[in-house]
């Protein structure tokens, strides 16, 4: 049934008994054309576009837990495309363009809310780096503009622009098309969309091994629900990528760290946009329900624990209270962690691997939610054609050998 106001009313009047399942709970088949490992936003989007745009319908998405339960379900949902390098600009802008019509595309309101993302500059060095981004983005046709402290405050009235604070705000970059979306809705929207196109989404099915034939080509996966065959496997497992690739004897340039986020108790609207500060490390927005959604840092050690240290939370809330002094009496409602897979240059890896039939899409680290539609779109093309989509082409594994890094870290320090 189509999601619409009309159907909402009709169903409301008849006790909401007619809504169909958003996705099935199928039993795994013996084999598929393509297996996607990981039902996060990226994996589900990949399956969706494979089915929709490449006519491959015999697809399974295998998920060890519940779909959307990875980083997709635990991120602070910041969306923007004002990255520095041309390769990144193309990738993230591709995603933003898809975000703009995604609710219609999926017939699922993903609540994409381009309310503006403001990135603060606190030092002269910040100003230089920020302006470099702005100029680069403008050349690429990506909106990003410089705001004076007063303009920044006009855009976000609760910002503390006093000159007397420890790291006064010298200005900000604003991407007006940047914003947020509802994380769960993105996963669910893609899941529903893929399911309707015939994709089997199989939850509670953990991949335990990747099988190969004598020539080294993949033949399928061992799972907690038995062997499932496929000639093509796309691993889209975020923090668990190293574990999965290890099953095919591939070591990855990845480290997995816990990244934390937290929400406040819901309060009446006070925060109209997204604000990020790389220098004092804090970022915040307010959800449509009223909680302040706050991103914290990663722990310094590799961990799969999905929790993090108290001092990391503390450090973030220090910074939040500096930037927004009136939040100091508000209260933290819930604090959680996700496991992010970080590459040496803080850019993702999308493409083929040394093992034939095995594809990987990972390394999104602390900032891949924003790329979800674009990532799925280019990865689907890559899997379908066996060749990298042009936008994905620079994001190969080989770049770590040649040295052709796409170093967003060197340029910006943080990449949410």
């Amino acid at each position, binding site marked *: 049934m189509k999601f619409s106001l009309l159907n909402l009313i009709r169903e409301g009047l008849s006790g909401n008994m007619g809504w169909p399942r958003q996705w099935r709970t199928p039993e795994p088949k013996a084999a598929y054309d393509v297996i996607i490992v990981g039902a996060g936003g990226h994996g589900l989007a990949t399956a969706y576009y494979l089915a929709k745009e490449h006519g491959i319908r015999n697809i399974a998405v295998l998920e060890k*837990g519940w779909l959307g339960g990875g980083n997709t379900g635990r991120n602070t949902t910041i969306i923007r495309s004002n990255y520095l390098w041309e390769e990144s600009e193309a990738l993230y802008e591709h995603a933003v363009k898809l975000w703009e019509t995604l609710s219609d595309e999926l017939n699922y309101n993903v609540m*994409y809310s381009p309310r503006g993302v403001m990135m603060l500059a606190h030092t002269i060095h910040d100003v230089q780096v920020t302006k470099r981004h702005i100029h680069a983005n*403008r050349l690429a046709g990506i909106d990003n503009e410089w705001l004076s402290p007063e303009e920044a405050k006009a855009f976000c009235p609760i910002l503390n622009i006093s000159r007397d604070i420890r790291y006064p705000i010298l200005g900000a970059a604003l991407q007006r098309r940047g914003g947020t979306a509802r994380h769960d809705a993105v996963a669910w929207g893609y899941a529903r969309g893929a399911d309707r196109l015939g994709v089997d989404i199989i939850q509670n099915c953990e991949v335990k091994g990747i099988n190969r034939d004598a020539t080294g080509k993949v033949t399928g996966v061992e799972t907690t629900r038995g062997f499932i065959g496929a000639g093509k496997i796309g691993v889209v497992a975020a923090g668990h990528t190293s574990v999965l690739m290890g099953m095919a004897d591939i070591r990855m340039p990845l480290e997995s760290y816990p990244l934390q986020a937290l929400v406040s*108790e819901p309060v009446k609207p006070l925060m109209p946009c997204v604000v990020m500060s790389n220098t004092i490390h804090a970022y915040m927005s307010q959800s*449509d329900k009223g909680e302040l959604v706050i991103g914290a840092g990663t722990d310094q050690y590799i961990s799969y624990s999905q929790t993090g240290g108290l001092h990391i939370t503390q450090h973030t809330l220090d910074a939040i209270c500096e930037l927004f002094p009136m939040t100091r*009496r508000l209260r933290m409602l819930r604090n959680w962690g996700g496991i992010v897979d970080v590459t040496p240059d803080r850019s993702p890896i999308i493409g083929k691997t040394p093992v034939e039939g095995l594809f990987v899409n990972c390394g999104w680290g602390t900032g891949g939610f924003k790329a979800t539609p674009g990532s799925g779109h280019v990865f689907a093309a890559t899997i379908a054609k066996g060749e990298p989509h042009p936008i994905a082409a620079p994001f190969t594994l080989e770049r770590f050998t040649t040295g052709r890094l796409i170093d967003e870290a060197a340029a910006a320090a943080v990449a949410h």
Partner: protein
Amino acid sequence: MSMLRTPSGGRIDRTRALRFTFDGRLMQGHQGDTLASALIANGVHLMGRSFKYHRPRGPISAGAEEPNALVTVTRSGRSTPNLRATQIELYEGLAALSQNRWPALDFDIGAINGLISPFLGAGFYYKTFMGPKALGSNWAWTKIYEPVIRAAAGLGRAPEGPDLDRYANRFAHCDVLVIGGGDAGLTAALEASADGKASVILCDEQAEFGGWLLNSDGAWLGETLATLASRPNVRMLRRTQAFGYFAQNFVALQERLTDHLADLPEGTPRERLWQVRAGEVILATGAIERPLAFPDNDRPGIMLAGAAETYATRYGVRPGTRAAIFTACDSAYGAALALKAAGVEIAAIVDIRLKPDPALAAQALEAGIAVHSGTVITGTTGGKRVSHITIGKLQPDASVRGADQLACDFVAMSGGWVPSVHLFSQSRGKLRWDETLNAYVPNITAPGQKQRSVGACAGAFSAEMRGAFNGATPVPGDPAKVKAFVDFQNDVTARDIRLATREGMHSVEHVKRFTTTGMATDQGKTSNMNALGIVSEALGKSLPEVGLTTFRQPYTPVTFGLFAGQARGDLFDPVRKTPIHNWAVAQGAAFEDVGQWKRAHYFPQKGEDIHAATNRECRLVRGTVGIFDASTLGKIELVGPDAAEFLERVYVNNWKNLGVGRCRYGILLNEAGFVIDDGVIARLAPDRFHITTTTGGAARVFAMFEDYLQTEWPDLKVWQTSITEQYAVIAVQGPKARAVLAPLVEGINLASEAFPHMAIREGRICGVETRLFRVSFSGELGFEVNVPASQGRAVWEAIHAEAIKQGGGAYGTEAMHVLRAEKGFIIVGQETDGTMTPDDVGLGWAIGKAKTDFIGKRGLMRPDLMAAGRKQLVGLQTLDPKVVPEEGAQITAEANPAPGTAALGHVTSSYWSETCGRSIALAVIANGRARVGEVLHIPMPGGAIAVTVVAPVFYDPKGERLNG
């Protein structure tokens, strides 16, 4: 005293009346009351409105688990939203406001939402608000729907001004941390501390220790508290919730220090964060009662039976005059008797169980209370307060028949008890489903967490806590037609949860997120078990198969300020100041932040802006002499017979051939081959070097060296010591530099032959020992005076006085940047960004060509680092000399590049050069060195700026001025 007060008993101080207001209405309570108990005593149950439907709500609990009675408390410039009335201790003058209502709590326009609730079921917003497409995809959502939804969001209002309170922090260690001070916790604390040795911390979130014991007046509690208080090895923390349980027995506690006081003491922190590392943790957090999910179970006046009992016995207040009891658990019989004893009329006990304990039933009957077994409440009526219930009898086929009405002004319900396993779960312990308790109990402790649970939180229930029910209670007719609330605050009903499962949300995590059950400010303390029960029934799976959502910190919401603690203002991050800082302040300098350091940016004289001041400062250096505070530069003293060998291995340059008394500019790479730091290194003795690093790189470089020394080359006999803060560094630059220093220096011949460029001498200046470098970051004759930091200011002042005599003066970092750019000297972090090789920035010459290895050498040989077309450092001159391009601006071949054109490079540094009488810029450009002479463009919104590519040296290319 109010009619609802019991004549005696309880723990309130009846001799101390306290006045307070709720929404401006003046009322009275007693010392020992909570806001909730005092309001109830005043006949007020309507304390809040629910989140979505704005339904009128009263408290269902008497403690931390409260979902409904949330208020804002204001006092002397402070305002705190979303506090639970059940936890707010009453004080004289307390002022509370209700929330999430407009215009008033008992007349709230938002309640209209209740009328259209059929259309606002779980996940409704995902299904609509998408069109009309004709207006453009997402247009209506962003312009109409979302703003409306957002405007309605939230509970309380955030305060407007900054927080006037301070927060304290305390790290603590103890042998045993006991969390929860009820029967179980007190007993555990007594045992743990008995030997007089083990250090014990006992905490409880409530104002008094005792937990459930506070509902009876046994003598044991008083005696035990006295015993514990008398033991020096016990620290007792009241009003202290344990909110987070982290790895390796690290537990965070929040202690509330002043919120309960009528007069706020000056300066005392409002709250204290305890970060406790415990040898052993004993969890004694008790149990929470679960509500029953029956139709219209959310009217004010409907509360948990244990809470009703607590109000009557502990707070001496009757929640009403006539109660109906609805239960699945024996403890409600006790509650009924206690209420009866407190003077409440009991309409009936409605027991969902077919066969309640006969002894209890007999006891009730004896007390004159009717017991209806196998009976459920099928509905309630009443506006702002419950007035009637209807009851029906369970039939063998699980249907319900009959609709007897009973009048009552409150309902006490009990679905049984749920062990408080929140902290156990946070500690990553594994739970086990207990059939008999119908609840989860602690099972396997996580590694590294020495810990045990005792009392009710371990599932050690006393006999009267027997019996429990999960899910929605049976109703006559269509369950989809009734509103049986599960999550009160978020307005999640049983039918919402069933809808979620019908839509394919089979994971309990999906149900949670789709319906938002358990996501409110109470985090599902009272709702989770019923939600699970409903899912279990809807899916036909057992409860343990359904599983649980994750318990996360905090146990109850914790103030941001508590986390931030002292880190406010200047304490947010250390402010590092050089020994010369205060002099610069006195001169009216403007400062910039560089890492944690404050650096003098420029020294404006009357009427000067940054440009005028910088121009003047540059003229001083080029014309006469300028002095500059370079103390923040990182400095390392490297000593040992292998010192030169070590440098040889880490820096790209040759070091073994550096003579004693000489300096060299060093470049440091990472193993990948990219420039990460630079600085001048002086050889003081065959085995002693003085290394300088960038200001920002100081700690990083030191750590990197230590890493190689300790782990790669432990055989090298060389040690490093940070001397960054040992020395104040004063750069003296300009043709008159020698003249400035000459009168002050002893034992150093400043003449060029004796003391050439890139040399170091030791001697005295102003009578103080100095390491005097002859180096130049300005291109002029230059020295850098290193003196012990304590002498920095005095020596600076002496040098400054000499400089003034020579017509010179101080300059700041801005002028320093301009001067070095005129010479094409790079700044690591400005010309480089972690992607540049030495060759890229024109420093290929520095690499020791014969060296077989150094850090980064192999990295430099990787294909992309040797590829043609890399970006290279060049100079730029704008065709219009007055135009100063922006740093970071992009450079293209064409003036009007098509959108999406790749840039050739970007401007890294750009200034007005007073010396050159024109603007100058440094840039990195693909193949830049081969482009010298080409005209390129910097496209800007107001039109492109044309630039000529030039060599990156704008002034004195032959370097003649170094000789002064």
